[in-house]
């Protein structure tokens, strides 16, 4: 369009200056397009890698085993009390049942290999089954139990099977069992609910993100409660009340600097001050939240100040001239108009905090906490720390868990950003 216009003006041919300008214009546009394309491609590549290696963690392989709850094997009376049932050695019950089901496996080490096909959690599963339903004693049941991580890796194709035995995660014999059970329909896969409910575990097939999710949520809650009101209040003071002099200039520069301080420094500060001086409990969402608040504060202050600054001064003048006090002016007129920007900035700050690992490691939020924390004073883990720990583990089963955990954290981030967009849309006044 532009070109056509220049071609026809005055019927003269394009001047060389004109041609050069248009070329530069096109080149510039192409460079921009290339940049956007490159960014999109990297994001897609990243997401693709994570998704392809992580999605398999959302289902688990189960094997069927026939268990004879024989009172003799369990070494209890035929009508046992709960105490008796609690004292039973369920590991040996399981082993003996395996011996019965697979009488052809005689060698001790072979038997151990057979038991290693199953998750370590099988005895616990048996125990809770019997405790919750004592009438099982004396009956025979087919039970679905979790497979071991190694068997599952081969089954899912996450670990190579066509290599020499000593480098494979399963022996030749175990491989035969796996194929045999698969042929006999003794295998099935189910959604991995445990991933969202249980805490970390030594066995990858039992490990979950539940504790870390709760830990992160509690930490973020503390961060939100501290940094949002403080950040907004500080921004209001600096923008609306503080005299513009040397002191406020220095404060402004320092806030901007604070936003650029490496997060591990905040972790060190938390360690030195919160833990060692104030003696707050180590590795808790309270301490983690305080440290992350310090990190998030500058982001919130800067975003809020920008949002406040963007409110037209004529609105302030109008309100003040009506006889509104400065506080009424701020709360009735300025803050509502600045809210979308403040909320967006705060949520972006919190999203940063959600992904922060180093400061949490410094204040000891890496403990192997099996229980889900029930409050901000309980030892807790957090999503990024959990990812870090899993990524460090050498066992192959943790690879998919790491990727799956990254997917979860990405889901949280996307959710938070959507929330930011939603809130902005909701509070934004286009009039």
């Amino acid at each position, binding site marked *: 369009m532009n070109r056509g216009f220049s071609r026809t003006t005055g019927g003269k041919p394009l001047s060389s200056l004109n041609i050069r300008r248009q070329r530069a214009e096109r080149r510039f546009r192409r460079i921009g397009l290339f940049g956007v394309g490159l960014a999109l491609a990297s994001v897609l590549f990243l997401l693709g890698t994570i998704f392809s290696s992580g999605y398999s963690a959302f289902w688990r392989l189960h094997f069927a085993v026939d268990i004879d709850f024989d009172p003799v094997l369990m070494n209890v009376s035929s009508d046992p009390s709960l105490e008796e049932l609690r004292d039973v050695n369920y590991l040996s019950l399981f082993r003996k049942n395996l011996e019965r089901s697979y009488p052809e496996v005689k060698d001790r080490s072979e038997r151990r290999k057979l038991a290693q096909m199953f998750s370590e959690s099988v005895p616990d599963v048996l125990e809770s089954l019997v405790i919750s339903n004592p009438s099982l004693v004396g009956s025979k049941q087919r039970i679905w139990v979790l497979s071991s991580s190694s068997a599952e890796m081969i089954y899912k194709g996450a670990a190579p099977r066509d290599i020499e035995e000593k480098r494979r995660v399963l022996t030749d014999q175990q491989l035969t069992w796996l194929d045999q059970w698969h042929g006999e329909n003794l295998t099935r896969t189910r959604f991995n609910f445990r991933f969202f409910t249980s805490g970390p575990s030594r066995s990858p097939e039992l490990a979950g993100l539940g504790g870390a999710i709760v830990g992160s949520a509690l930490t973020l809650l503390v961060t939100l409660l501290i940094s949002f009101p403080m950040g907004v209040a500080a921004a209001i003071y600096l923008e609306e009340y503080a005299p513009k002099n040397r002191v406020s200039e220095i404060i402004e520069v320092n806030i901007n600097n604070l936003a650029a301080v490496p997060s591990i420094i905040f972790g060190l500060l938390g360690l030195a001050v919160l833990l060692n001086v104030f003696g707050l409990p180590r590795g808790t969402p309270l301490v983690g939240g305080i440290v992350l608040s310090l990190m998030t504060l500058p982001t919130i202050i800067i975003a809020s100040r920008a949002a406040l600054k963007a409110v037209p001064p*004529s609105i302030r003048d109008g309100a003040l*001239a*009506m006889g509104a006090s400065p506080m009424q002016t701020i709360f009735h007129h300025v803050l509502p108009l600045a809210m979308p920007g403040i909320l967006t900035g705060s949520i972006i700050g919190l999203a940063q905090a959600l992904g922060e690992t180093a400061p949490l490691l410094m204040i000891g939020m890496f403990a192997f906490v099996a229980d889900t924390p029930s409050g901000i004073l309980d030892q807790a883990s957090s999503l990024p720390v959990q990812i870090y720990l899993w990524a460090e583990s050498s066992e192959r089963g943790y690879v998919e868990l790491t990727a799956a955990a990254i997917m979860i954290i990405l889901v949280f981030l996307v959710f938070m950003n959507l929330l930011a967009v939603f809130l902005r849309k909701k509070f934004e006044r286009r009039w």
Partner: protein
Amino acid sequence: MIEISPPSKKSEKNFTTRLESVDEFDRVETVGEMFVDRPKVSCLGVSVHYGDKQALFNINLDLGRNEVLALIGPSGCGKTTFLRCINRMNDTIEGCRVDGEIKIEGAEINHSDADVVSLRSKVGMVFQKPNPFPKSIFDNIAYGPRIHGLSGPKNELDDIVEAALKRAGLWEEVSDRLHTPATGLSGGQQQRLCIARAIAVNPEVILMDEPCSALDPIATARIEELIDDLREKFTIAIVTHSMHQAARVSQRTAYFHMGHLVEVGVTDQMFTNPRQRLTEDYITGRFG
């Protein structure tokens, strides 16, 4: 009506030579009728500094009851600054210092103990650019009465809003959409809304800073009519760049020049027979 003659080269030259001798201006004595009997607002020796820069020099000027006072003068001469002294809006400007005596009904308002909130409920202001709040038309008008506790029950507030809109001549146009955004109104309607907003709190004085500068002649005429009506109840000071407007709406006119109040006079007399050379040059269009 006043005559506007095209600027002549000669007088322009004269004018610049007079402008350059700033010393002369430092001793400017206001001529004319700057004082009135029983003034509503009286300013004595008002000087304003923005930081080190002095914007107003020793201004003595009264606003009479039920009078419209026009403030005229070239751009940057301090008209807005003077207006903003009267409702202490200069307080909001960092580094601005106002010295001198400003009395409303005999009560000094230019010292730190004076209650700014109640002052501003007595002295309303209309800005050059319409600045309705981004709320509904109703809430715009109701805001002042609400924060000053002027209204009791809801229907009383309805009455206040209706009365204010009627006075501002906007009622017919907006009565069916009181709860729609005020920013959806036209520029002229918005300016009348701002006037309605100012009179809704029943002020005694209304300060208008070039209220018609963004409006077309029809909207301007409506606002001028409105100003004439409002004079029955309020004291009005209006800044304007239009000599015609000053001549039409005001009883007295004050001419500011580079921070000095050069001349104050009864409007008709001032436009037909200015006493100062500077005034004459300005109103005959040889300057500005």
